[in-house]
C-alpha cells in the first residue's frame, strides 16, 4: 500500500474507534438507561478541548495567534485521564437537569438548546478556545517513538484500538452487572424502580457522568490525532449521527454501538470520501446526509431496535442436584401453591 493509502486507511480506522467509543457512551445513557442526551456531542468537545489546552503549552508561544485558557504541557497519558474526568464532571452537571422531570422530547429540546448555547459561547468568547477558528497545531503524543509518519499512524491506530477495547469491556461489565439491570429498570419504569428502592436520580447522574467521561475520552483520542478542533467539529448534528448509529446498530446491546458506529459515521459519512467527486463540492456531502436521514427513517419504521438489539438476559438453569421444591425458609412458606412440598410432606 502506498503511503497515502495507508494514511487514509489508518485515519479511517482511528475515526472508527473514536466513533465506537462515543457510541458506547451514548448507548449507556440512551440505550441502557433511557436518558435522551441530545447534548452528547458537547462532552466529546469538552474532552477534545481539555486535551488540547493541556498539551498545547502556553498560548503566548508560537506567535500567540491562538488564544485559549490554561496551556500546559502534560505528558501522555495525563491529558486523556484529565479529559475523561472533566467531561464526566460536566456530564453530572448536565444530568442535574433531569431532576426537573420534563417530558422526554421536551427534555431533548432543552438539551439541544444547551448544545447550541455551548457552541455559541465557545464561538463568541475568543479567549476560551480561540473561538470559531478553533485550536490547531495540537501536539501528538509519543511522537518520539518513530520518525516514519506511516508507522506513527498505525501506532496511533493501535493506541486508539486499545482505548476502545478498554472502554467496551468496561461498559460491558457495567451493563451485565446488577447495576446495569437497575439502569434498565429505570429505563423501563422509573416509578416502579423507585418503589423498589432504586435512587433514580443518582443512577441517572451516574450514567451522565460515566457516559460523559466516555465521550470525553473519544474527544481526547480524536483531537490528539487530528491535531485541530473547532466548533465546526462538534455541531449538534453530530449528536444526531450518533443517535442514528445506535438506532441502526442496536439499542442497548454491547455490540450494537460497534456495528452502528461502523455503518453510520464511518461507511456512510467518511467512506464516501473514497467515491469520485461528482457535481459541485457540496453535492456528495449533502447526499451523505440525505442517506443518513433516509436510513434513519427506514430503520425507525422497520427495525426500530436496530440490527443487533439488546438481547434477553437469561441465567443458567438450576442443576438437577438442586431441586426447585423449596425447603422451609424463614418467613416464607415451605409449600408451593399446589400444596406440595413443605414440612411434613
Amino acid at each position, binding site marked *: 500500500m502506498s503511503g497515502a493509502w495507508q494514511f487514509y486507511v489508518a485515519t479511517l480506522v482511528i475515526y472508527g474507534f473514536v466513533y465506537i467509543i462515543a457510541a458506547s457512551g451514548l448507548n449507556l445513557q440512551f440505550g441502557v438507561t433511557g436518558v435522551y442526551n441530545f447534548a452528547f456531542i458537547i462532552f466529546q468537545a469538552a474532552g477534545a478541548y481539555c486535551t488540547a489546552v493541556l498539551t498545547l503549552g502556553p498560548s503566548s508561544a508560537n506567535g500567540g495567534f491562538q488564544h485559549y485558557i490554561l496551556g500546559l504541557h502534560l505528558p501522555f497519558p495525563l491529558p486523556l485521564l484529565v479529559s475523561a474526568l472533566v467531561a464526566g464532571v460536566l456530564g453530572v452537571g448536565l444530568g442535574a437537569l433531569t431532576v*426537573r422531570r420534563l*417530558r*422526554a*422530547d421536551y427534555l431533548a429540546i432543552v438539551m439541544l438548546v444547551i448544545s447550541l448555547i455551548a457552541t455559541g459561547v465557545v464561538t*463568541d468568547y475568543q479567549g476560551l478556545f480561540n473561538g470559531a477558528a478553533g485550536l490547531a497545531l495540537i501536539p501528538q503524543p509519543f511522537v518520539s517513538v518513530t520518525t516514519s509518519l506511516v508507522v506513527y499512524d498505525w501506532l496511533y491506530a493501535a493506541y486508539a484500538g486499545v482505548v476502545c477495547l478498554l472502554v467496551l469491556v468496561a461498559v460491558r461489565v457495567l451493563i451485565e452487572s446488577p447495576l446495569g439491570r437497575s439502569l434498565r429498570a429505570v429505563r423501563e419504569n422509573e416509578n416502579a424502580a423507585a418503589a423498589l428502592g432504586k435512587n433514580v436520580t443518582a443512577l441517572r447522574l451516574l450514567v451522565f457522568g460515566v457516559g460523559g467521561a466516555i465521550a470525553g475520552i473519544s474527544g481526547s483520542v480524536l483531537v490528539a490525532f487530528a491535531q485541530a478542533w473547532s466548533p465546526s467539529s462538534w455541531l449538534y448534528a453530530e449528536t444526531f449521527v450518533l443517535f442514528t448509529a445506535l438506532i441502526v446498530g442496536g439499542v442497548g446491546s454491547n455490540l450494537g454501538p460497534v456495528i452502528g458506529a461502523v455503518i453510520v459515521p464511518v461507511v456512510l459519512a467518511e467512506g464516501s470520501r473514497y467515491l469520485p467527486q461528482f457535481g459541485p463540492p457540496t453535492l456528495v456531502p*449533502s447526499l451523505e446526509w*440525505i442517506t*443518513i436521514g433516509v436510513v434513519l*427513517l427506514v430503520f425507525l*419504521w422497520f427495525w426500530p431496535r436496530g440490527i443487533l438489539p439488546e438481547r434477553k438476559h437469561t441465567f443458567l438453569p438450576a442443576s438437577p442436584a438442586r431441586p426447585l421444591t423449596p425447603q422451609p425458609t424463614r418467613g416464607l412458606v415451605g409449600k408451593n401453591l399446589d400444596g406440595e412440598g413443605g414440612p411434613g410432606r
Partner: protein
Amino acid sequence: MQSLALYVGFGLVTASILCIGAVGFTLQFGISNLFNLAFGATMTAAAFVAYIGNAHGLNIWVSLVLGTLAASLLSFLLNRGIYLPFRRRATSRFTMIMVTLGVGIILQFGIEAIWGGDDFSYNMSTGSSVHIAGMLFTTTQLTVIGIAVVATTAVHVLLRYTRLGKAMRAVAVNERLARNCGISVKAVVDSTWLLSGALCGLAGIVLVMDVQVLNAGSGDDLFVLIIAAAVLGGIGSASGAIAGAVVIGVVAEVAAGFINPEFKDISAFIILAAMLLLRPTGLFSSVATAKEVAR
C-alpha cells in the same frame, strides 16, 4: 436612548417574523403533540420555491403566495405521509423527534444538493427608509410587520370565533373528548397542518425578504429562536407564541445591539433554558400542562 429605540425597532421586525413561525410551530405541537424539528427546513424550502418563481420573472409578492402554498402542501403531506403513520404505531415521543429530525435533515440537504452552499437573493427592492419614533425601517420591513399583524390576527380570529378554530383548540387540549363530541378529528388535523404549514412558509419567505440572503441554512438559523418563542409563550398556545415572539425578538436585538452582535442567539437561548428550568410550561400554559410536558 436613541440607539435603544433603534434596536427595539429591529426587534419588532424580528418579532414579526418569529410570530408567524412560532404560531405555526405551536399549532403543530398542539394538534399532533409533536415537536416538528423539520419546521426550519420547511421554511427554507418555501423560501426557495419563492425564489424559483421570482427568478422566473414573477413578482416577489406573487412568489410569496406561491411559496406559502407550497409549504402548506408540503407540511400537510409530511404529516399524512410520515408523521401520522408513525404516531399510529404508538411510537414513543422521543422517537418522533428523531423522525422529524430525520425529515428535516433530508429536506435541508436535499435543498443543498440542488442549490449547493451558495447564497441567493430575491429580485426585489427593499424600498425606502422610514423613521418612526427613533426606529428605522425599510418599507419592506414595515410590510413584513404588517403581514405578521394580519396573519396573527387572522389566526387569532380563526381560533377564537370560528367553529374550525374552536375544534382545533378542543382537539389540542383533549383529542378523545373532542372526538366523542362529534368533531371530525381527521379533518381538523389536516386543516391545522395546512394552516400551520402556510405560516411556516410565510415565515421563511419574509425572513429572506428581511435579511436579503437565502441559502440552504436560512430556516435553521431562525428556527431555534422560533422554538424559543413558542416554548417561552407556552407550547401549544397561539397567544403565547405571539407573546414569546415579541419578548425574544426584542430582547435578542437589544442584546445584539448593546452587548455583542453574536449575543443575539445566545441571549434567546439563555432565556429559553432558564424558562424551561423554572417554568417549563411557559407563560400561557394550558395546553402544555394538558399534554404533561413537565411533571
